[in-house]
Each structure stands twice: as C-alpha cells, then as structure tokens.
C-alpha cells in the first residue's frame, strides 16, 4: 500500500509537469486526466475511496470533458500551438519558476522540520462522511447548492450570444 502511494504520487507530479510544459491544449488535457487519475489512486491509498470515485467522476469526467468541448468550439489550429510555443520562452518562465521553487523549498523544510506524532493514516468510511455532511455541515451543503445555482445562471448569462438580425426591418425594430 505504501509503494502504491509513492508511485501514484510520482506519476501525478510528472503528469502535472507535462501539463505545464506542453504546447498543445489537447495533449495538456490528456496529461491532466492522467494526473487526476493518479491523485485518485493517492486518495484511495489514504483511505478515502469515495473521494477517489468523486475525483474520477467530476474532475476527470465532467470538468475535463467540459474544457474539451469548449476547445472544440473555439476551432484552434496548428498556428495556435506555434504561438503558444513562442509565448513560452525560457526568459518568461525562469523567474517565476525559481522564485516559486524557493517558496516550495521553504514549505518542504517547514513540513519536514516539525516532528509529527505517530503518523498512521486511517480509513474514513463514506457513511461517516455522509452523516457529517447532512448533520453539522447542513448549512454548507445548502450554500453549495446556492453556489451551483449561481454558477448555472452566470454561465448561461455570460455564454449567451447576441442574436444576429438579417432583415433590415427587424433590425430597425430592434434598434428602437
């Protein structure tokens, strides 16, 4: 079980790095699916099998497919890949990467330096999660519902396009 965790973690890091470094959007999304699947395996080894299923269904299933549909609607070509390649020069990414690596090194030091007492990961059943979700966290669930509703309405409102008017009579009437 321990080796599974480390292998899945390594796969997740490598796949995420490939997402960041690839120029083609579709390739990046395929690596992103691999990354999400690896993180789902990590969840499973940490004793959260229900969250692993949710990760696969919602992240790798719904969100990535939504992004792929939008990319298909945008009708991107080979020139966009070339433009992406020209945007991603070493002079652009070297500064933020080095500074962020310094921050990551500090984070690693802070996590490792603190000695944690007896670290054993314990499995939490989905039933316990459900009981807590509909017990003390009821308000959070309702707020999530409101958030999703706002997301639906917002996406519909923002994604609506103006109707193209072809007849000049209708155009005049729409203008008045």
């Amino acid at each position, binding site marked *: 079980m321990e080796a599974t965790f480390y292998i899945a973690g390594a796969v997740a890091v490598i796949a995420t790095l490939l*997402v960041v470094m690839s120029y083609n959007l579709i390739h990046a999304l395929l690596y992103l699916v691999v990354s999400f699947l690896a993180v789902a395996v990590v969840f499973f080894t940490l004793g959260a099998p229900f969250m692993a299923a949710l990760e696969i269904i919602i992240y790798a299933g719904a969100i990535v497919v939504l*992004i792929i549909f939008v990319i298909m609607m945008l009708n991107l070509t080979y020139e966009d890949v070339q433009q992406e390649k020209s945007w991603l020069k070493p002079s652009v990414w070297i500064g933020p990467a080095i500074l962020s690596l310094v921050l990551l090194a500090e984070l690693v030091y802070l996590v490792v330096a603190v000695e944690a007492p007896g670290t054993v990961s314990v499995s939490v059943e989905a039933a316990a999660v459900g009981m807590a979700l509909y017990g003390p966290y009821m308000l959070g669930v309702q707020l999530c519902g409101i958030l999703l509703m706002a997301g639906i309405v917002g996406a519909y409102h923002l994604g609506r396009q103006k109707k193209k008017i072809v007849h000049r009579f209708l155009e005049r009437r729409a203008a008045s």
Partner: protein
Amino acid sequence: MSSIPMEAGLLLAGILFVIGMVSVMIRRNVIFMLISVEIMLNAAGLAFIVAGSHWAQPDGQIMFIFILTMAAAEVSVGLALILQLYHHLKTLDSDAANFMKG
C-alpha cells in the same frame, strides 16, 4: 491501515500546488490558466484529504466535496467568459483583454 507518513501527502500537495502556481504565472493562454487553477484547487483538496485521514475525521473529505463543488461552478463560469472573450477579441491571449471596456 497503511503507514503512509503525513509529510509525504502534504509534500505531494505542496509540489502540485507550486506547479499549478508557476503555470498560472507563466502562461498567456486563458484556457491554460484555467487548467492551472484546477490543478491548484485539486492540490488544496489533496491536503484536506491527507489531514482528514491523519486525524480519522470526516471533515477533510467534506471540505474536499465543497472544493469540488466550487471548482465545478468556477470552471463553468470561466469557460463562458473564455467563449465571450474569444468572440470579442478573436484570440485567447490574456494580454489582449486589458482595456477594461466591453
């Protein structure tokens, strides 16, 4: 159950978060920036799961469900915005949308 140290999980979450953060900063394509924000949210959820499994409490997994909900709402609104941006400007360059005018 298994003897995975908590540090390893937290370090994995930190590494994934930093990769996503660097990607947000270096990319100019809006869709790549959205993908990177998803990576960062996923890393934050991983940290919650690690902590929840360490203390054997369901709260960590509940926080992950909330993060998942927020990510779904965020990606739908973000993609609608990207579609409008592309229809207006005919490009995905985030620098092209800097004049704050419809």
